[in-house]
């Protein structure tokens, strides 16, 4: 649901900010990514629940945007959905190397760690989000909730 909301928001803001003029160099490519056909198609495939198609399109976009934290985060998500956990971790870690404050990557790698039963690592990313999100942020709330639910389920078992 959250992903859907984000996607609609992105579409609206691309229109609003297109041609926004000079931005610091690191953002020029971030904004170019939003107009990349493969990236946009990958997001649409992800929203439609087709992780395989999303992965193919994100992989195609990677040739043009090898240093995009957002793209690596999406690749991590697609691999995670396909249960390719090693590749998922590889991309999440790359996203966090490029941008150590990437909130989405912290949340999703934390959730990926829960999927493989590594609660301690998920907690580390929750701690990272606590220091990044000085004001409340949904990535922090969602990961905290996921960890809490994971613990409850483990206890029930």
């Amino acid at each position: 649901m959250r992903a859907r909301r984000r996607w609609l928001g992105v579409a609206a803001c691309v229109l609003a900010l297109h041609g926004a003029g000079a931005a610091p160099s690191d953002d020029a490519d971030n904004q170019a990514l939003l107009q990349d056909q493969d990236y946009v198609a990958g997001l649409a495939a992800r929203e439609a629940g087709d992780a395989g198609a999303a992965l193919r399109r994100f992989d195609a976009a990677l040739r043009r945007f090898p240093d995009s934290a957002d793209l690596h985060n999406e690749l991590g998500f697609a691999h995670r959905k396909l249960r390719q956990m090693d590749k998922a971790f590889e991309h999440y870690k790359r996203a966090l190397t490029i941008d150590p404050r990437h909130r989405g990557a912290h949340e999703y790698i934390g959730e990926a760690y829960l999927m493989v039963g590594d609660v301690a690592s998920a907690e580390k990313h929750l701690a990272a989000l606590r220091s990044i999100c000085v004001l409340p942020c949904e990535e922090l709330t969602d990961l905290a909730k996921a960890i809490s639910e994971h613990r409850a389920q483990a206890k029930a078992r």
Partner: protein
Amino acid sequence: MRIHRVAVAVALASMSINASLAHEVEEGKGTLGKVSFANSCDAKVQAEFQRAVAMLHSFWFSAGEKAFRHVLEDDPACAIATFGIAAILMNNPLAGQGSSPKGAEAAQAALDQGQRIGAKTQRERDYIAAVAAYYADFANRPERARQASRAQAFEALAARYPDDDEAQIFAALYVAGTQSQADQTYAAYLKAAATLEKMFVKYPDHPGIAHYLIHSYDAPPIADKGLPAARRYAGIAPDAPHALHMPSHIFTRVGAWQDSIATNRRSADVAKKDNDGASAFHAADYMIYAQLQLGRDQDARRVLDEFARVSADPTTQAGPYAAAAMPARMALERGDWATAAQLPQQGSRFPFCDALTTFSRALGAVRGGNVAAAETEAQTLAVQHKALVDAKNNYWATEVEIQRTAVAGWIALAHGQPDEALRLMRAAADLEDRNEKHIVTPGRMVPARELLGEMLMELKQPAAALVEYERSQLREPNRFRSIAGAALAADAAGDRAKAKRLYARLLELARDADSPRPELARAKTYLAAS
């Protein structure tokens, strides 16, 4: 290698132009500095060719492109002119945005034309190939990759022609263009500056060298190194609009307010005359910022009134940013919270421009005692922040995050939660320290660390406040409110000697103030009683 260097020197010496046609002024067409770009074009186009290169060095892109195209019309065999056209169409290489797709198309057409003409020398072919490296596979590469290719190609060019000083200068520019916002060691800037400093000794009147040195030192810890270039550049190329404004980037960094006012006044006048509203607004914002630091509030008011009658292109950020920033600065720098709380929203297409008004309204409201209004503004700020996050405008999203956090801190303080207030305000200041100021602005509406100092004063912690005021001035020196706040804090902390020094410094800074600021009255009273 040695043989190669000799061969290059001979080849350069044999060209028709060489240093003999280096010029400063072309009669009746203004002063753009001394440039000598060796080339094999016809003698009749030499003056205009050098002039076009000088325009390129001062980022006078529209006039420069016309000049290069005119050279090509007059001498259709002058293939190297296509290098100039393609270089201009990359736009400001330090702004990060790069060429537009339409610009890239026009540049490729120029480069293709250069290929068809066939440059007469290998060196000219190498210049054209170096600029072509930027445009290669344009649609399929991100800007950072293009920037890297460009820097690499021009560094290779400079290495191949070590006696070609223009190659060294362009290589330095494009290396500086790879500077990342995240790198606070400023490695690329300093690498470029090392080359440019040597060139500056050799060519003190070259427009590009002085200009690129200013850009290469446009960061707080290294800004003072840029002062010699800043003081010279406007004099080297006084007819290039960008040359009149650029020195103020350094003047602002070091707090040389009189210099900033003078050069921006000239820049704004030239820009207005050229109907370049965006550049005029940009210069005016820098000018008002400087005037307010000197307590010249009436002067600042006059500039604000003057610009109420100027219009700027709403589709580029410089105009809308300055239009929103100038009235906000007028209110916040003078602690006029009531006016700040009522600032009208400009309703631009840029969420970060609207956010600075929202931030100012929120700060004005909460510090004026209207917490409910501040909370409403804080919600608006959150919406503007989200718009920037969703659009992947991470730089400005971070700037607005800093504003949100600071506002939340002051709201917490108003709700009687001092620990939470300080936690938030410190987080805002720390985050701001990690995010470099954008070139569109002379400074944030209020530096977050200065605001932290003000909050600590509200909480009766003057010693801690003094520390924060002093830290704030390391990055943004000579600010009126920082010095006044530090003086007050020093006195309250019991350091009367320091308070005296700071009050004396404040009075010296604002010796030509045209308005009765309460801080100045306090300083006079304090010093008289000491």
